[in-house]
């Protein structure tokens, strides 16, 4: 029965990804539109129920379950680099998380930059910065979380900075976690006469608990999301892991998604864990551009 329900969630996720025609407004900052974690990215960026620290960038409610620190860096080309840091720690009956995203890129001479433009070298130097402070705890059997964010994007000589909020809920359901979040709720950024809306995003996702299949651990995650002015997108990722010695583990991951602008359909990745350290790599396929690679280090 649970499998049937899970299948239904996955099917609905994929069906909901039917592209909608929409007039895309100008969105900024760019950091808020890019993947937050290496493991999540390798599973099609579906991370609503994850328990690593990078879940801060997907669903603040899961900060209550996450422990450790994640570092990552993703190159989109010779002149574009995204780096992230996320860390969570328990606090009283809940947990707090802090996160930072830094983006340096050279974009086209006109416009605010968009995910599909990353890697297209341009003459205009741009940078993005995003700082997040989150708190989550369980209330009445449901985990609830709130992120307070400060987001900044500089375009050549101008920049703007705005506050923003993420909210999220999560609860254990069947043999996994169901999560829902709304991100980037805040005022538009202004660059002269240009008004750029925050990329407000609504996510719903389900992450399964680890299932044991002989010597292997299986894990799956799915999510559907919609960004302001954009289409519904869906993602489905999976992980197969094997531990041959207590504390050591290798994991292979892959994901398929109904891609948003500039994204490719596939992601993949590997992880190698040694006790508290996990080294991860993810490949992020991109439409009309070479794949972007991301490396990450998780410290538990």
């Amino acid at each position: 029965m649970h499998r049937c329900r899970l299948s239904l969630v996955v099917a609905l996720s994929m069906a909901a990804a039917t592209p909608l025609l929409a007039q895309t407004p100008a969105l900024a900052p760019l950091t808020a539109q890019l993947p937050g974690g290496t493991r999540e990215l390798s599973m099609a960026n579906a991370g609503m129920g994850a328990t690593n620290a990078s879940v801060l960038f997907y669903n603040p409610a899961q900060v209550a379950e996450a422990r450790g620190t994640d570092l990552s860096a993703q190159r989109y080309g010779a002149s574009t680099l995204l780096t992230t840091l996320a860390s969570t720690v328990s606090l009283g009956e809940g947990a707090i998380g802090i996160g930072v995203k830094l983006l340096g890129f050279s974009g086209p001479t006109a416009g605010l930059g968009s995910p599909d433009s990353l890697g297209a070298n341009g003459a205009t130097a741009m940078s993005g910065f995003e700082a997040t402070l989150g708190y989550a705890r369980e209330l009445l059997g449901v985990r609830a979380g709130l992120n307070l964010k400060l987001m900044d994007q500089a375009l050549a000589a101008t920049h703007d900075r705005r506050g923003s909020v993420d909210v999220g809920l999560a609860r254990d359901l069947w043999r996994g976690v169901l999560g829902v979040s709304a991100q980037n709720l805040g005022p538009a950024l202004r660059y002269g006469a240009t008004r750029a809306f925050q990329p407000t995003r609504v996510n719903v996702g389900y992450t399964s608990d680890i299932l044991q299949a002989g010597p292997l651990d299986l894990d799956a995650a799915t999510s559907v999301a919609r960004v302001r002015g954009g289409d519904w997108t869906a993602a489905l990722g999976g992980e197969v892991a094997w531990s041959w010695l207590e504390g050591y583990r290798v994991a292979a991951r892959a994901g398929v998604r109904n891609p948003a602008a500039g994204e490719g359909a596939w992601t993949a990745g590997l992880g190698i864990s040694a006790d508290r350290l996990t080294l991860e790599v993810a490949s992020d396929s991109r439409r009309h551009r070479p794949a972007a690679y991301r490396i990450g280090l998780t410290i538990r």
Partner: protein
Amino acid sequence: MTSHSSHRLVATLLGCGAAILLAACTQSLKLSPDDSQTILAHQRITAPNPGEPGPYTVKYLTYGSGTDKRREAFRDSVAFRTRTVDASPFVQMPPSEARARKKTWGFDVKHLPLNGRVWYPDGPGPFPLVLIVHGNHDPGDFSDPGYRYLGELLASRGFILVSLDENFLNGNLRGENDGRAWLMLEHLVAWHAFTDSADNPFYHKVDWDRIAIMGHSRGGGAVTHAAQFNRLNRYPDNAKVTFDFHFNIRAVVAIAPVDYEYKPAGQWEPMENVDFLVMHGSHDGDVSEFMGVRQYDRLRFTDGKPHFKSAWYVYRANHGQWNTIWDGLDGGPRSANRLDLRALLSPEEQRQFARVVIGGFLEATLHDRKEYLPMFRDQRTIGHWLPRTMYITRFQESSFRTLADYDEDVDVTTGSTPGVAIQGAGLATWREAPIPLRYTNDDQHTNAAWLGWNNRVAGADTAARAQPASYTFTVSDSLVSAWHIGDTSGVVLSLAPTYTVPPPHKPDSAAQASARAAGPGVSRSRAPRAQDDSVPMDLTIELVDADGHTARLPLSVFGPVRRPLITHVLRRADRERARFQNPYELVLQTYPMPLAAFARVAPSFNPARLRVIRLVFDRTPAGEVILDDVGLANPDPAFRAPPG
């Protein structure tokens, strides 16, 4: 990203991954040198091997509720039905857990079934009745069929063996071992009804004067509680719950038991007046310390009747192989990545040990086959029956009188009985302290004397030796007389060497002056090299009578003297170090030493006038031993081995 940089990144990551994989090496297999070829070279008992099948044809049936939705054996194929019992005073759990369990099993703790598998001899009886209960394990991987090998053996030898189903108490419960124990006694109540019922296959087939209970893991803890509950009229934790069991439980067997799950009235319960056997594997990946030695130590013989207790520490045995369902993976199906399984005895070897020792114990205690008693006093009497590995054994029988158990006070010069004085001479270490168990911050709940010596003299002359260190008990005339010590008596002590080597004696001032006079050219700064651990340790037992006649024998005449057996349970050395205090368990070996053996080597020595028992540390230049339970005994001659 360019192709070149991509390749460089991938190469870097592969390098990091390879470094991580290389770091993930299992520690090398470390075992103590095996001396079993020597220790177990002889067979002194000539009776049939109690681990081999006996003359009876074995029959088998199951009994139970008849309604068990998960167990076909206790639903459709029961030979007769049993009532349910209310275990709610003993087993508590949160409501959500209770709901989940009721959904899983179809009943709650107020309606627990009495399910059992019975192997029994085809004969008129009456036969001794033996109950065995499993411990905690995956509730869905039913544990009760795992003792079939014991059931078939014991039934063929004229015992009824019942393996109880308590799987419904398995899983994540804590502190429920009183429930396991109580349920065991409720089975005995049910059996009483079986044997009184003319239409039951066991009608008049049980010898109610000869009952034994056995348990494994938590079941091994439960049997000691059951032995106590059997004597009590009320439940210690709620006196409104009354007991009325009072079965003639003669013998208790604990297989790799726990000793922490439940403490009646918050106390470490004393066990009294039963014969007791406990066994534990050195490479137990679940209960990774010999907790049963505490049960052994707490057992007291107070009723003046003949009893004995025996403990076996089995090198390279694990937790699960005494149950064919549990078998080799003590931490569950995935634990091969955690546990070092290379050292383990084969399952058949481990189970053959259980057949021999449990079979011999029950033959001795329930069938009064005294010819098996010597195997518990001295493992070397059954060298051909035991699987080839190393064993450390404890033994005590009810005639034992304590000279010193180091638990009575903090005066290291007095024994535990008036009339006993203790002296040390030349000792580098002399203290009384608890004996640790392997887990960090756990111990055996008993004190012992820690005695270290180094007969070498520090300095240039590496051959220089001081007077050998010694440790002496002096016993009074009146004590020897009151305890009727004589030719058939014996000295008994339990001892274990450690790996500690104290520093050598400091030379006295005259020796130092002499060394200075010898002039330069001799290094005085280098300490003698620490002794090689592979050299067997030994010491001399010296007895002196009131007339000054002395008799001396090496301790090794009376049993193996070994340094602790090196044990690595986990594959990762760092995890092993974090979890355990030592890479070994400090298990004391009991040495029963007949006074007649001393009189044979020194005919002028008169055992009836014994005054001094001295441990002389003259056979190993330096070392340390732990000493406990020193006493005198007048054992039943049946415990002595037949002449070899």
